[in-house]
């Protein structure tokens, strides 16, 4: 078999024909030479040659490729059929495009985020290492105390390397007219990059000599910052930049794909150069860092975890008091990065799978209808000896063609969706690695083929040889002949409705829980509040007096801005997550039992903060302006704090000893203010407020509440700050509404997408019901006409047809309810304040589905009841 011959069959055929002619000529000439009459000679020659047509056919077949040949024929036949019904074809292709597009897009995300290994050398051996406490006094995955890390590094044998890093923020001064900018950064032990196996694109990465207090400041910048701020100029390596007003030499640029531990981090500094205070090497209780380790070959994660836990348990024995952990937890790095987002992505992926299946069933359904209308044709072909296999092949070819066309369109759609998603969901882990790659396209092709086969085989296999002849025997007025087809279509419908029901309830549950989330009372003002982040540099504001002076002046000037009602400063914004907690002791209570400690969320605020955020005073008083510097040993607590630590007494007048502060650190509780939430979905955390005017803290959020559009305050406020300190950068300028939007982005996104998928499948199911019933009515036109002629009431006909359509919908609904219960349980972790069996959602969804089903049934039923019996009887 060769392609050349295949394509030149026509010429070969002509050749053979001429050859045979010349054969006849030769033979005739010989016969004449033997003495025959010319006519007889030619006749004999032809007889000898035999059937010339058969010779040609044999040669033609020999030059053909059987399967390909017939596939080509089927393809042409299918194309012709599809072209004859453009409406059907366009609908089916669009339906398939939506299904494939959504599924491939979600597959791309799941594959890129969850399944692809991290882009590090031998990334399977990389482990995130967290601390924990076997007495569960601590979170399951607590941050690591730096002193613990140093002990691990010294004592553990099961690791090739182990590195420490932690989040920080710098004010990056501008040069040559650039504005200063606040950048998210990471400080790290020098060996993080070797541990991960990352190399610099330009320059070099940290060495041990950069990573100590005496070294000159060095900084490694990310590709993004390099492109954005230094316009991709390689000569930036070696240049000195100012971070928090201190000089740092840029030593290297990281590769473009490097987005670890998140895409937020813009630059990296050496941790020992940054953290020069003694607590860094000594404290086993200050949990501020993350640790990544590469386990040695031949060592299992469990062994390494046991080893570290043993070391940690010894540390705990040595330091029995305070927040010291006694165990370590190892999580594969990939899992620790994407573990949280995984369930949501899987749910969305499953939803697209359902959508695709519904699309597929819908097309199958449409094809069954077409097959039914071509029944006669198939029957005649079967009777004439056409084989059944060929009929099936044609059917499958048709649906394959549909699904390939739809899928091609779907791939384009998926590409668009992925592009959009990457822009919208910058908060997703590994978002930069998301791209529609070969694997996704392969997956798409697989999905297309599968869909084509399913959609084609379902109707094709319902072709039955034995019934074929019955069809021919049937009078043209038959209506009973297609019972089986109708049953099949009803079954497909039922499945569609059931899947739609599951999607709808899941979407409803997520939507409700998103609304619940947005309706959460944060405990403070959320409207007309603008916030911005600023951090005073150690270099310029080294003393409490300097910091206090800056903050006080800033507040005075901001409060004087027109339209501003109140302004304040706080170290943590409600709804933005957990920032800091301290371990402390209470003067008026016995010390905590050995191995336990008291801890609460810490926030540091100015006296005007509570009024600015409209956090109510419950007892006692707010901070006062005169409580400043050394005269500021007062604290305010929340009801949750009071409830936890003073269940039976009044917290006011009690004393908290918080050793995390320099100078005198015993604080008297002077007031109780309302609880606020750190996260939308979380509980009210016991919280203690300390005065910002103590001057111990140089980092704060400025919050401004005012009239009108608060975003208009951003520019004047920034101008005030710039006039006070041109190198001081401001970051994260957001209204409280925007912060809440960000905090609920995930829930919003999941709910919106799922609702979209559910509505899409609802439409598909509706169209499916409508199609089946319309077909049914058309098939039974004569039957209905006879019934009416015999006196059947129009109402009864209407009811009859309605019931006919609603029955599969009702069965589907029941099955869907069962499926929804299962689905609800599976997505429980994504729900907030919503039960998986929320009755309102279930009832509402059932009503919506039934309404749509009813509406879809109504039109054909109405048409049936309006039939003119005379005309109906005449129709063929």
């Amino acid at each position, binding site marked *: 078999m*060769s392609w050349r011959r295949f394509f030149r069959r026509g010429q070969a055929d002509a*050749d053979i024909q*001429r*050859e045979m002619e010349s*054969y006849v000529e*030769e033979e005739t000439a010989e016969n004449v030479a033997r003495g025959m009459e010319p006519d007889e000679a030619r006749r004999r020659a032809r007889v000898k040659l035999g059937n010339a047509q058969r010779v040609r056919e044999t040669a033609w077949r020999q030059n053909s490729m059987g399967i390909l040949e017939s596939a080509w024929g089927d393809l042409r036949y299918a194309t012709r059929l599809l072209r004859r019904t453009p409406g059907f074809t366009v609908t089916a292709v669009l339906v398939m495009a939506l299904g494939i597009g959504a599924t491939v897009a979600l597959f791309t995300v799941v594959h890129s985020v969850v399944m692809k290994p991290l882009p590090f050398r031998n990334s399977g051996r990389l482990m995130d290492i967290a601390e924990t406490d076997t007495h569960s006094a601590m979170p399951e995955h607590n941050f690591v105390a730096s002193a613990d890390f140093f002990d691990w590094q010294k004592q553990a044998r099961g690791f090739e390397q182990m590195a420490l890093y932690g989040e920080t923020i710098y004010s990056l001064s501008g040069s040559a007219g650039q504005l200063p900018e606040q950048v998210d950064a990471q400080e790290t032990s020098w060996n993080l990059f070797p541990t991960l196996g990352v190399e610099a694109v330009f320059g070099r990465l940290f060495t041990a000599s950069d990573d100590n207090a005496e070294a000159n400041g060095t900084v490694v910048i990310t590709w993004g910052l390099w492109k954005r701020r230094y316009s991709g100029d390689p000569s930036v390596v070696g240049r000195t930049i100012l971070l928090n007003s201190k000089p740092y030499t840029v030593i290297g640029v990281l590769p473009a794909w490097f987005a670890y531990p998140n895409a937020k981090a813009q630059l990296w500094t050496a941790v020992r150069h940054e953290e020069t205070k003694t607590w860094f090497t000594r404290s086993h209780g200050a949990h501020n860092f993350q640790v990544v380790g590469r386990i040695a070959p031949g060592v299992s994660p469990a062994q390494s975890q046991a080893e570290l836990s043993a070391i940690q348990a010894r540390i705990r024995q040595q330091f029995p008091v305070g927040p010291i952990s006694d165990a370590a937890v190892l999580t594969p790095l990939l899992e620790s990065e994407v573990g949280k987002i995984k369930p949501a992505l899987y749910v969305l992926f499953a939803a697209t799978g359902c959508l695709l299946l519904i699309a597929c069933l819908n097309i199958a359904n449409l094809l069954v209808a077409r097959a039914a209308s071509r029944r006669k044709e198939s029957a005649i072909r079967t009777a004439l000896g056409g084989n059944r296999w060929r009929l099936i092949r044609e059917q499958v070819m048709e649906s394959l063609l549909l699904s390939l066309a739809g899928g091609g369109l779907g791939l384009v759609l998926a590409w668009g969706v992925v592009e959009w998603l990457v822009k919208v969901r910058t908060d997703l882990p590994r978002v930069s690695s998301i791209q529609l790659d070969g694997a996704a396209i392969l997956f798409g092709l697989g999905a297309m083929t599968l869909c084509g086969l399913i959609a084609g085989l379902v109707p094709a296999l319902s072709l039955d040889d034995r019934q074929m002849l019955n069809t021919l025997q049937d009078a043209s007025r038959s209506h009973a002949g297609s019972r089986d087809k109708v049953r099949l279509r009803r079954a497909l419908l039922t499945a569609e409705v059931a899947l739609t029901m599951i999607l709808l309830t899941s979407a409803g549950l997520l939507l409700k829980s998103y609304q619940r989330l947005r309706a959460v009372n944060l405990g403070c003002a959320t409207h007309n509040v603008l916030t911005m982040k600023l951090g005073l540099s150690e270099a310029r504001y080294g003393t409490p007096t300097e910091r206090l002076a800056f903050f006080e002046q800033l507040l005075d000037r901001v409060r004087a801005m027109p339209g501003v009602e109140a302004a304040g400063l706080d170290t943590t914004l409600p709804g933005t997550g957990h920032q800091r907690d301290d371990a402390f002791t209470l003067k008026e209570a016995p010390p905590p039992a050995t191995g336990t400690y008291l801890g609460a969320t810490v926030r540091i605020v100015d006296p005007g903060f509570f009024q600015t955020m409209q956090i109510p005073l419950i007892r006692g008083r707010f901070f006062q302006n005169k409580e400043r510097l050394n005269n500021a040993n007062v604290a305010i607590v929340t009801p949750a704090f009071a409830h936890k630590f003073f269940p039976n007494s009044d917290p006011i007048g009690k004393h908290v000893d918080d050793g995390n502060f320099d100078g005198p650190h015993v604080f008297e509780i002077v007031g109780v203010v309302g609880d606020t939430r750190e996260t939308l979905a979380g509980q009210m955390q016991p919280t203690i407020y300390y005065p910002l005017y103590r001057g111990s803290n140089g980092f704060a959020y400025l919050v401004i509440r005012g009239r009108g559009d608060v975003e208009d305050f951003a520019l004047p406020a920034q101008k005030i700050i710039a006039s006070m300190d041109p190198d001081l950068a401001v970051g994260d300028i957001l209204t409280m509404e925007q912060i809440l939007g960000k905090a609920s982005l995930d829930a919003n996104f999941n709910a919106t997408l799922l609702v979209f998928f559910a509505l899409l499948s609802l439409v598909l199911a509706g169209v499916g019901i409508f199609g089946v019933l319309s077909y049914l009515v058309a098939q039974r036109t004569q039957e209905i006409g006879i019934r009416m002629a015999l006196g059947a009431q129009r109402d009864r006909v209407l009811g009859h047809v309605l019931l006919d359509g609603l029955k599969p919908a009702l069965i589907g609904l029941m099955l869907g309810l069962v499926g929804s219960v299962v689905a609800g349980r599976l997505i429980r972790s994504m729900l907030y304040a919503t039960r998986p069996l929320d009755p309102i959602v279930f009832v509402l969804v059932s009503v919506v589905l039934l309404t749509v089903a009813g509406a879809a049934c109504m039109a054909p039923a109405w048409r049936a009841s309006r039939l003119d019996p005379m005309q109906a009887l005449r129709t063929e």
Partner: protein
Amino acid sequence: MRKSSEPQNEMLKGTLDMMILRTLVGGDAHGHTIAKIIERTSEDLLEVEQGSLYPGLHRLEDRGWVSSYWGASENNRKAKFYRLTAEGRKQLVRETSRWRQMTRAIGLVMGEETQG
């Protein structure tokens, strides 16, 4: 007259190819001559089916064992001539030796005297 020839043809397919190649050793020839030579040489025991001959020739050409050109026949008519290629010659040698082994083997089994 050729009604029962189908299975026999199938069996002879390989041998027909071999015989065509053998015929062409004597020089280029067109279909009619090839058929005639085979029939004559076999003392008219074999009758070459045109239905197998032409597809067979095309198959051989496709495999590169023969080449073809249009020329004038002995009677000065236009005819397609076939020529044995070098590759075809090698193939003929291979097939001939296989054929010899085969006939000898069958002969042994059938208990015939092999004639020296």
